[in-house]
């Protein structure tokens, strides 16, 4: 018994002692909501600790004193209406004391009105896409950690970065002290958009739009991870938000807008086969390698594209499966016509596939019906 008690005391004590270390508790709050959450949590923990110590103090007193080995005799009472009413009512009152402040925070969390900036976050298997609805550009945000750091099956692998699994190629950029509304949705399965330091978590549900908001108080980089099981690489789709000053934000937006214009594929461009294949390789590397692998040989449940019936058969079937998906193969309808045409052309002329043909964006466009 004694061992257990001191163990519990130690655990309790250490949890308070380490309260400032963010390995033990919440990450430092960057928004009002996150601070509210931490406050409620501390308040609840305090009440709970008091109840726990009181209730189990009584129990351990009984365990030490009312035992047969000390010759204690049982007193066979087994009812006491007043006590029973009290220990029903008092907890109920305590609960009200907990629920009241929490209810206020619920209302604040849900109030997404009057946001200055609206960003749509779309979950994909397995990365995030962001649309800056007010500024008209969008980009994808993917894990930057290389596979060579992740896969340690045969060797310890490369040394892991400090931001292992938490770094993306293109973070979301938002201005400081601005109410930002995040709309979440998904292209395939349910994901969840999370930034712990902002006290924000919102599931991204395919076919529906949900929203949440935050107003970051400090510049800096804040990180979260997808938190709804979304398949194979659920652990590998971080969310990174970079909070910058208003001016920096403006610069960034205009640069983005210009780049978007430049990068947009001209729908009327006449693509040559080689151009398409070169473009397709990029699309492949950023979307398809996770499953079908760089050599197109697949692995596990993911079929090889090298020599596959579809990738060497009629192009229609190939376009169809990429557009609509099948079982664990996601639908890639979210890519542009050009991207799809390119990646298909690439697949049909790589990994030892020599179809010789290629697919033009307009064919894809037609296939979308």
């Amino acid at each position, binding site marked *: 018994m004694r061992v*257990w008690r001191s163990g519990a005391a130690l655990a309790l004590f250490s949890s308070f002692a380490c309260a400032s270390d*963010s*390995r033990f*508790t*919440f990450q430092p709050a960057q928004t009002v909501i996150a601070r*509210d*959450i931490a406050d*409620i*949590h501390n308040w*609840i923990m305090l009440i*709970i600790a008091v109840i*726990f110590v009181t209730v189990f103090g009584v129990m351990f007193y*009984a*365990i030490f004193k*009312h035992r*047969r080995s000390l010759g*204690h005799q049982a*007193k*066979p*009472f*087994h*009812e006491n209406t007043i*006590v029973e009413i009290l*220990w029903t009512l008092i*907890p*109920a009152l305590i*609960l009200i004391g907990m629920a009241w402040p929490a209810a206020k925070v*619920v209302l604040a*969390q*849900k109030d997404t009105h009057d946001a200055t900036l609206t960003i749509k976050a779309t979950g994909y298997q397995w990365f995030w896409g962001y649309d800056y609805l007010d500024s008209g550009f969008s980009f994808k945000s993917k894990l930057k950690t290389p596979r060579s*750091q992740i896969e*340690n*099956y045969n060797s*310890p692998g490369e040394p*892991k970065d400090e*931001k*292992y*699994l*938490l770094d993306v190629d293109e973070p979301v950029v938002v201005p400081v002290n601005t109410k930002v509304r995040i709309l979440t949705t998904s292209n*395939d399965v*349910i994901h969840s958009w*999370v930034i712990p330091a902002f*006290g924000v978590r919102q*599931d991204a*549900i395919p*076919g*529906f739009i*949900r*929203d949440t908001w935050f107003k970051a108080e400090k510049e800096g980089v804040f990180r979260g*991870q997808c*938190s*709804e*099981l979304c398949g*194979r690489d*659920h*652990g*590998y789709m971080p969310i990174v938000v970079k909070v910058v000053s208003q001016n920096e934000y403006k610069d960034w937006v205009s640069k983005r807008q210009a780049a978007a214009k430049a990068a947009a594929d001209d729908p009327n461009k006449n693509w040559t086969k080689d151009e398409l294949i070169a473009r397709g390789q990029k699309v492949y590397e950023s979307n398809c390698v996770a499953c079908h692998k760089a050599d197109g040989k697949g692995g*596990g*449940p993911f079929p090889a594209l090298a020599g596959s019936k579809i990738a060497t058969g009629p192009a229609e079937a190939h376009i169809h499966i990429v557009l609509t998906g099948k*079982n664990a193969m996601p639908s890639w309808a979210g890519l542009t016509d050009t991207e799809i045409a390119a990646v298909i052309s690439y697949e049909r002329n790589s990994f030892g596939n020599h179809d010789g043909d290629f697919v033009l964006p307009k064919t894809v466009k037609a296939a979308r019906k």
Partner: protein
Amino acid sequence: MNAATKALHPGESVGEQVHGHTHDHAHDDAHHGAQEGWRRWVYATNHKDIGTLYLWFSFAMFLVGGVMALGIRAELFQPGLQFWQPEFFNQLTTLHGVIMVFGAIMPAFTGLANWMLPLMIGAPDMAFARMNNWSFWLLPPAAALLLISLFVPGGAAAGGWTLYPPLSIQAGMGMDFAIFAIHLLGISSIMGSINIVTTILNMRAPGMTLLKMPMFAWTMLVTAYLLIAVAPVLAGAVTMLLTDRHFGTHFFKAAGGGDPILFQHIFWIFGHPEVYIMALPAFGVVSQILPTFARKPLFGYVSMVYAVCAIGILSFMVWGHHMFAVGFPATAQLFFMFMTMLIAVPTGVKVFNWIATMWQGEMTFETPMLFAIGFLCLFTIGGFSGLVLALAPVDIALHATYYVVGHFHYVLVAGALFSLFGAAYYWLPKWTGYMYSEFWGKVHFWWSMIAFNITFFPMHFLGLAGMPRRIPDYPLQFTTFNSMASVGAFLFGTAQILFLINVIRTIRGGVGPAPARPWDGGHTLEWEVASPAPHHTWETPPDEATVVAGLRLQGLEHS
């Protein structure tokens, strides 16, 4: 009965039949059932044999699920992918959850109910003995489906035990195996529960009114009721999943007006009562053990009954607390938060009653008592972390993190599982006729207690710091606690081998024969029969005097 008597009474009224047949029936019933070899188990209609089958099955499933848990913990010992491909890791998580819930914990309680309920309420057997056999024998095929699914193309279901679409719509054939396994498990649960409810309502000994039956019977009654209510709901949910997968329906697809969230609603209308299905019987077991070793009647019997019923009712109104992050309107968020917090009141009543039962007792600390006390402390911690999650704003920070994993292993492992160990030690003398080794029992307890906390306490820290659940790999700042949890898990697993050995040695003679009443504080009816309990008991109900004497000692009969 011979053909002549049969022919004599083709259409007699029931009352007369009872007179006419009593004697040759008694003869009949006493002797069938004593079959030898495999038939005894495969064709079993005896509640004790079926109970034994359930208990062994559930322990085997516990080992299987436990090995999967060790697979999870091994991968999570360090960041990076060491052993499994991520998709296999997800299969491990999913099967671990499904097997532990449906294969280990639930059948263990049904097995206990089978073994003990007829003994405790003075019934000759379960109400529907043949159906009882079917309830059990549907479990091995279901387990087989789950295990076979590991080897089909695409592997086993990997969408988590909650099977949320669209992920589970995407999955391969393994998901269909899981769906059908759940159908079989559901049928089994419904039949088992109908048996339990009917036995309790219809077959109690004379003098044992509902408000005088052992608390374990009460908790099983409410549990069985919950299960009959929600197992069909789960069956409906997975059926919709199946048709969405293969027959083009749009229940969970926005393109046809459906909604993935619909599945979550239906699942949790099943799922939350389900967690109480795993908790209430544990409450019942603890309510039997504590009075026995405190040598005092259970404090506040009637309020305990009310509390169990209140939990039974409230558990249908809180499902939304699993869905705080899906984007409910504020009103729903508040409603589910308040209702969930309310459950702390009846649960608190139970905790306080248990402590009052120990207060001024004459306690001894045999292994069952240790597990009951361990249960009490750790379940309460799990309940408190549940309460933290119940606060919707805080859940926004903690949902789908390891905090939740910590919460539910406190209530499931230190709750349901510890109570099962307590029950096993408590009734082993009655089952086997021998005493188990108290020393090794205590070692099992302390080892489990310490290893359990090493495994699962750090998970709260991980969750607070933001580590998502269901990931095979994690950022570096989570390493320390994960390594700790993994070490703890292997230690905890090792302790369970001690339990297995102790049980087997008890069956083989233990530390000596057990008396009919091994615990001097036990006053329920099972202690009135010999140890080991004969194959047939209470063929004639216990006489009222015996029943009343026992009730008086339990503080349930006055004057």
